[in-house]
């Protein structure tokens, strides 16, 4: 609780112009855009989910992949409300001990990256497609901060999510988007 002297308060108030709508809004924390880059036999293929105005009208780009093929997938999270867009992926890497990306899909996903504690992060994974068809890939960024001094990010969460669903996990979902995969 700051105590701003009264005169200062009035002076400060006078400076903030309500007509200024493109100022430094400093909108932190919002994830508007998720980009998946698939590295496979056909080179780099991109799939994305983007709602740059954060108003519930996303544009989804479905990647075209080959059946029964292994892809190295990198996952990026962006905040496009900021100009230029803020790359939130770096923050997730920095705080990897309390974040994990989960994938709900019929394809097979294995984690390639680890945090300092040896637990998976999920920004770099291997995805192996199944037979041809269309299948959904749901990407969930789970925030697992310490609770009452105890870590919520522990081993076996991906297996738990697969067995009992995402809702069985501790923490909160920072992002949860579904991108259809077109497998040929």
């Amino acid at each position, binding site marked *: 609780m700051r105590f701003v002297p009264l005169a200062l308060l009035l002076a400060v108030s006078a400076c903030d112009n309500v007509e200024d709508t493109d*100022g430094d809004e400093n909108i932190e924390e919002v994830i508007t855009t998720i980009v998946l880059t698939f590295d496979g036999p056909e080179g780099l293929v991109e799939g994305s989910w983007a709602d740059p105005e954060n108003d519930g009208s996303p544009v989804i780009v479905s990647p075209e992949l080959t059946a029964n093929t292994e892809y190295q997938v990198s996952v990026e999270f962006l905040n496009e409300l900021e100009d230029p867009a803020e790359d939130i992926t770096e923050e997730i890497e920095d705080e990897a001990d309390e974040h994990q990306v989960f994938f709900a899909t019929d394809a097979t996903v294995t984690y390639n990256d680890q945090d300092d504690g040896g637990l998976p992060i999920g920004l770099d994974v291997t995805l192996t497609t199944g037979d041809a068809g269309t299948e959904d890939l749901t990407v969930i960024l789970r925030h697992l901060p310490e609770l009452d001094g105890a870590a919520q990010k522990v081993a076996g969460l991906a297996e738990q999510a697969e067995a009992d669903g995402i809702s069985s996990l501790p923490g909160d979902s*920072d992002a949860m988007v579904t991108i259809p995969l077109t497998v040929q």
Partner: protein
Amino acid sequence: MSAALLLLALMSNAAASCDLVVRGVVVDGDSGAPVAGATVVVGPPGRLISVVSDNEGHFEAPGQCSGFVRVAVSHPSFHAGATAVDAAEDAVVQLFTHEDHEIVVTEEMPLGLQDTRASVTLTEQELDDKRGSDLAGTIEDIPGVTVIGGASSTSKPVIRGQFGRRLLVLVDRVRHEGQKWGIDHAPEVDAFGADEITVIRGAAGVRYGADAVGGVILADPLPMRETPGVDASVHTVAAANGLRGSLAGRVDAMSAKVPGLAVRLSANATSAGDQSSPDRVLGNTAARELNLGAAIGYMSDTVHARLSWDRFTAENGVFYGVRAENPADFRDQLTAEPTVVYTAGRDIDRPRQSVTHDRIIGRVGVDVAQLGHFDVTASYQHNHRTEEDITRQAASGPQYDFTLRTTAVDASLHHSPMAVGLDATLEGAVGVTGQLQENLYRGVPLVPNYRSLNGGVYAWERLWRRRAAVELGARLDRTSRTAFLTESAIDGLDRRDATSTCERGDSGARCAGDWTAGVVTLGGLWGTEDDVVGVKVDLSSGARVPSIDEQFLGGTAPTFPAFALGDPSLGVETTYTAGGVVHLHTADLHGEIAPFASYVNDYIQFAPAVGANGQPQFDVLSTGTFPRFTFGAVNAVWYGVDGHVTIAPDRLVSLDLRGSMVRGQDTAGQPLAFVPPDRAGASLTAQGPDRGAVESPYVAFDVDAVREQNRVPLGDFSPAPDGYVLLGLRAGTQLRLGTHIARVSAEIQNLGNVKYRNYTSLLRYYADEPGRDALVRASLHMHF
């Protein structure tokens, strides 16, 4: 000795201008016995006549002019009192003493008929028994009043189902301006700063503003000292649930060297840890509040001037269990048994909200001979609210940052009562108001910046004849508001084809709107000669301008898992209300019952959006799929009844029964959201006799029952919670220590530690309400 002195002044009905005789009788307000030897001073300044009451308490002051005359009474064994009475009208004037031997005068017609609506005033003594509650909690025992709780320890008052935008809070007679649209935005009002709270139920738009649809809460500080001396008061409150503690102090002084110049300083602090429901700690519901105030006043016989400043600061944790940012998480926790066990503490972590509210008021009141009382009030309010979500560590600031600046001027003339014909009096006022308001918002897209200008004129007149009065009032407001939308907000509006009058600029857009809104009221009062029965009727129509959120809200709130969308094309909401009150006042029974009904044309409601195919609509954000809630206009009907009755009010044992019922639905019969469920309560009070310094000791047992709300709109996330019954136990007394007064009380709330959820509380989606609580209060009022 009695704390209240009842002065019965019986006026002559002579019509000539200055040959009236003011006659009266001075009686002990408690025992009813006449008081002999009281000095009664009657008349306008400069023409005072001093008389002494005889053995029957009678007095007679000849040579009075028609109109209001001041009547002051003093006696060595009683507190002095003063009031103004109308020399053309029979009147009963009740004087309530303050311990400082100053008087707060409530000029009252019999049976509290001074307002044409249902109204209740909580005095200092009653407020002392509720210290430590917030504003909403302080008044929630009044029939017709309920609270809407957030997901922290804050709450908002509700009167007859109306809250936020349709309910006015006036602090020191200045409209309180905060972000009142948010369900978890409690009014930023220091409850310790109020020495008298009046709750008016029913539309009161003429005097207070067109948005006083549901009612008005007047939180008034103690008047400044009028005589040299020093008053000091200290309040302490300790509560077991959450280990809450409050300490409040105030000093009022006037120096004998500079008579007329009074000063006041006040401060109070509250600290609360995490609260607990009957079987669970509500993690992160700790709270802190710090309030400061200072005032300087000058008064002479004809001029009252005052400059005051107060600051409210609060920091509230939001329950950790609130997981509304992601609808899937939210739905999962609605049915799942809570698995996380929180430990109680005093830290306030994210998610949390912080508010600072500064209020500066300057007021000058002048009595102008032959004309009346002229009053000008200028005020500035600065409301700064920040809300912080659980974030990555890299995000250090708030996600929602609101600044609301309000500058207002109000000038009114309350004209002197005028004789009409032989035995009627006309009393009334005219006024003008002006307000400039600016909202500055930074953060996750939610509401736009705006600038709003409002001007209003109003007048009301009341014609009195014996025990009956008719009141007519009208008000006209003009509001001009420009919203400044960001680029992404206007893009979003365009995508939804939302009709709007927006002008695009280099970055973003300006959306301007102008509205004219009128209020008309017609009221009547009538009381029997013996004061046993009183009746009030009030008819009014009022128009409310759509608020900024109703037009332009766009986004998700941290505590409610919906995607909210305003509608820029919304128009004025018009309410037609009829209300009545019947009072009964006998030796064995005090009571009142107040029915009401209103029809609202283009009632603006917040409800789940349904598409053309009849299916609910959703918006997909990166955090999940949110049900879309929109503001839309429907025609609606509200009706209900509230009231109370006290049986054997002045006996050793008395019983108080109270209840309230309100219904709100659209004209198709679909219930409106957040309508409080029916409730009934009873209090059995045993009052002991005064013994030495101990005055008015009491012990009371309370039962409060709330029905399940079975009229709920479609689209609620979970069914309405079950009804519940809560028990309470209270005891207290007043101690007179020379010129000082102390009040102590103890209370146990929710005696049975019942698990319950409140339909009008956001917490109901996440957890049970806090369980049993034990409170101890002590107040000391010192006079030097």
